[in-house]
């Protein structure tokens, strides 16, 4: 059957499939989902306008994450008034996982999110890209325009801060 497919349809589909990851990324940057969704929406609009600038054969996710991050950085008012608010616990009910396991895990998860939300901005960047999105140090360095050793040390400092907060209180001697 004949398809009315334009050349950039594949990129559009990929972009749509990326939305959940973009939301997660923006949530770490902004500290709350409402602001994250505003960032993602502006990012998608920019990406759609500039789809012709996307180089086929390169990775769309890196391109889109860069746009999302720049979108957030460009919005100085929002970046300056960052409000960390753990609204993720409010959407958990929608996920429909096993209730008991989820309840046990959610207290831990909340603590982890609070710890991430409390990190300085430059550390959240690398946490989002390396820990959550599982980009390599090298990829993250390219996306953030940073030397690789700096990406490593920022993530290292973030790990130390997170480990301190995530450790059960009994061990904090």
């Amino acid at each position: 059957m004949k398809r009315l497919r334009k050349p950039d349809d594949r990129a559009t589909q990929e972009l749509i499939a990326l939305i959940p990851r973009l939301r997660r990324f923006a949530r770490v940057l902004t500290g709350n989902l409402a602001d994250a969704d505003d960032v993602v929406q502006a990012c998608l609009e920019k990406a759609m306008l500039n789809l012709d600038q996307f180089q086929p054969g390169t990775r769309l996710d890196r391109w889109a994450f860069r746009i999302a991050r720049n979108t957030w950085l460009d919005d100085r008012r929002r970046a300056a008034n960052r409000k960390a608010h753990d609204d993720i616990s409010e959407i958990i009910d929608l996920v429909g996982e096993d209730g008991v396991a989820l309840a046990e895990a959610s207290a831990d998860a909340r603590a982890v999110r609070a710890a991430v939300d409390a990190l300085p901005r430059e550390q959240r960047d690398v946490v989002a890209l390396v820990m959550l999105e599982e980009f390599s140090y090298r990829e993250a360095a390219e996306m953030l325009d940073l030397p690789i050793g700096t990406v490593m040390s920022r993530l290292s400092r973030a790990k130390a801060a997170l480990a301190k907060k995530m450790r059960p209180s009994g061990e904090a001697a």
Partner: protein
Amino acid sequence: MTGRFSDKDLAAFLAGTLEDEAVMEAIENAINADPELAERVEALAREDDTAKAVRTAFAPVLAAPVPERLVDAASPREAERQKSAMNAASLGDLPEPANDTGGSWRWPQFAAMAASLAVGVLVGGPLLTGAGPGGDMGGGALVLTGTDSAALSPDLAAMLDSAPSGEAVELGGQGSGTVVLTFRNADGQLCRQFRLDGPAATSDALACALGDDWRIEAFGRRAQPAGEMRLAGGDAAVGVIAAVDEMIDSDPLVGPDEAAQLEAR
């Protein structure tokens, strides 16, 4: 240069367990100045429990329904013009869901697919057959024709219009459908969760009344290990359950009450 630090120091540098701030900085600077050392440290990178815990903590964002405005933002401008194009694509043409909801789709994603592919999305295929409104659709239980309209096969629409919950209805002689739950959403619309039993698979879906029609809000195919006997009950597709949980705003409608409210719609 590269030999100045031991692997142990470098691993500790990556893991965030290096206490000495001066050593920390020295290693960072050395890596930035020395590509060989950078490669050596990259090779020492290990997945750790902290990363796993962080992924778990933020996983609900991946599984959450995507707001419609975001999908709209990524939909091609000419979607409107192309909406009338009525080509069929099988589900196999769609990208894999980005999360692990077991191959379920929510309405905004469906709509976006239909728009971005500029085609109707044919759901069903081997699952059920029944002539779609286009006549040449090759058969399918549900046919979505555009971003804001979903045309159901007449059998299926009739089932949603009047079949009571729990009663299996023959659909096109190829399978059956059963409404499992009827309720009202926050907007007061009647919604019905239903199951489609085909020869090859069982699927779940949620439809809500939209004017005289029904709009598919969520659809998911049940995970079914090949070669195992099909269970009568089983678990409905998680995406569909999540959609019902999200939208239900009344007690389930049953018996004469259900019949009366369907009649009055």
